[in-house]
């Protein structure tokens, strides 16, 4: 008596690698990338969307565990049982996927004794979305491990598996059931760890030209890359753009707003502003001032790297995006800055010396706009970025300086402008050349600030409390 099929009732599923293999030649980025591609195998042909999350809550929790790890399926050392995943359902482990940490996990390896992580992951994620084992020899859901299945970037599911998953979830709109899955160029897999330099980019972290957006409960701060290919060529090499780490679904099936505009994001826990100071190999696009704009209306985040904008809800891109910014009555070419002012529930867009005011309730631009900037006395007429911070004040950025407007006020607070590098980036020596400036929390933080400086997963993080 076959049990009723189990499947997810939702179509957007989050995932997270909770624990990584301990003694594996595969780096964390490689493991994450392989998980991404193994999930993409399924989402390419079904209406499922997978996005990586950083928090503790994820639909699909991925672990590398050994021996008995407190579920019904203890591992048994090398060989034997290599992985398992839990079918969808109401149980808290539904979708969770476990790999035996005692296996010699490999990727693109000629070692016949290793266990190809991508091949196993594709199989296990089949379980995680509701597929059981089948006897069909060509099916990826055949229970036995038969070695690597090929390049993750070009792998396509056997027809039998496609039919089975279509029976559960239907066909993705962009896919013809009789055709091969879409072969759009996917993002690059990270190089093997030994091909990387771990040298952090020591760019212009203390002479920033920022686009900033405070996202509840996180912050995105983006810093344009060096302006010329020459600057790029002298930069050390580092891993591929980590856009999907931060807003995962943005980069999985959609263009990543940051990488497409040559800007690198960094999202950190609540209360911190972090500047991405990573250089991405091969990405040498010119970034114009203010190309990345972010603004936040109630519960909705908009990001725009140019003429188009993306709408996010939580970490997901809403369906139907990107859309042209002309939706808001904005001119082609993008805007320099935008932010929502909680004082009147209006969203302000700035471009050159003009500003527009958008009404969140009527969803139209207010009459009489664009108008001449600035609206707030003391704020410069052109801006690089603007945002509302957790203290309720609005902050405006231009060049190396920022201006603060207290909540509800129409003029800049006394004592401004101040240095962005000193107050937001905690740069200890503003005159230091980029080569000698590491952007880390300095020794001269102001009273009340809590400095944190750490290098995590190849990233340099520079943060300060609000």
């Amino acid at each position, binding site marked *: *008596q*076959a*049990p009723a099929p189990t499947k997810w009732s939702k179509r957007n599923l989050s995932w997270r690698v909770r624990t990584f293999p301990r003694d594996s030649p595969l780096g964390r980025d490689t493991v994450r990338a392989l998980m991404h591609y193994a999930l993409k195998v399924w989402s390419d042909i079904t209406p499922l969307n997978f996005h990586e999350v950083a928090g503790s809550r994820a639909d699909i929790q991925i672990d590398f565990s050994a021996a008995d790890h407190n579920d019904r*399926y203890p*591992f048994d050392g090398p*060989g*034997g*049982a*290599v*992985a*398992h*995943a839990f079918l969808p359902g109401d149980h808290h482990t539904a979708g969770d996927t476990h790999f035996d940490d005692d*296996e010699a996990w490999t990727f693109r390896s000629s070692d016949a004794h290793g*266990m190809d992580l991508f091949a*196993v992951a594709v*199989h*296990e994620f089949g*379980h995680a979305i509701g597929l*059981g*084992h089948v*006897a069909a*020899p060509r099916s990826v859901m055949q*229970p*036995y*491990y038969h070695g690597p299945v090929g390049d993750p970037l070009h792998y396509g599911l056997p027809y039998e598996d496609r039919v089975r998953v279509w029976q559960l979830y239907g066909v993705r709109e962009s896919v013809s059931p009789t055709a091969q899955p879409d072969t759009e160029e996917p993002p690059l897999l990270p190089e093997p760890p030994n091909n990387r330099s771990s040298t952090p980019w020591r760019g212009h972290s203390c002479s920033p030209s920022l686009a900033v957006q405070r996202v509840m409960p996180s912050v995105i701060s983006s810093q344009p890359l060096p302006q010329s290919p020459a600057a790029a060529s002298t930069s050390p090499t580092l891993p591929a753009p980590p856009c999907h780490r931060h807003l995962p679904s943005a980069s999985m099936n959609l263009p990543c707003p940051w990488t497409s505009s040559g800007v690198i994001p960094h999202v950190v826990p609540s209360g911190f502003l972090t500047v991405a100071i990573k250089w991405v190999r091969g990405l040498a696009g010119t970034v114009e001032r203010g190309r990345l704009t972010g603004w936040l209306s109630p519960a909705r985040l908009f990001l725009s790297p140019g003429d188009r904008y993306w709408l996010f809800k939580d970490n997901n891109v809403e369906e139907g995006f990107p859309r042209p910014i002309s939706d808001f009555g904005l001119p082609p070419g993008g805007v320099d800055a935008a932010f929502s002012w909680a004082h009147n529930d209006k969203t302000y867009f700035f471009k050159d010396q003009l500003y527009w005011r958008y009404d969140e309730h009527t969803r139209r631009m207010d009459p009489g706009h664009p108008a001449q900037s600035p609206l707030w006395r003391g704020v410069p007429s052109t801006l690089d970025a603007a945002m509302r911070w957790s203290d309720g004040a609005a902050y405006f950025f231009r060049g190396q300086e920022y201006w603060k407007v207290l909540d509800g006020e129409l003029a800049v607070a006394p004592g401004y402008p101040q240095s962005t590098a000193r107050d937001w980036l905690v740069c200890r020596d503003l005159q230091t050349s980029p080569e000698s400036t590491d952007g880390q929390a300095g020794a001269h933080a102001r009273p009340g600030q809590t400095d944190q400086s750490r290098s995590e997963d190849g990233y340099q993080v520079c943060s300060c409390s609000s």
Partner: protein
Amino acid sequence: APAPSAEDLSLGVDWLSRFGYLPPPDPTTGQLQAPEELSKAIAAMQRFGGLEATGVLDQATLALMKTPRCSLPDLPAAPARRRR
């Protein structure tokens, strides 16, 4: 074919129970699996694994049982028999 050793038989029964081909042994009675049930389970496992379904625990079957694989059962877990 030579009869499987006691060790192979034990391994086979354990494997077949683990992956859903045999109901788990009754811990209260320590009841062994009946030979017919065992043969049927082996045949089912052989069919699933692409082997000839002989129902005999031969070397090819044992080799398949030692092949790395997913931990989940191939068949939905059969309920343990209850005593009337």
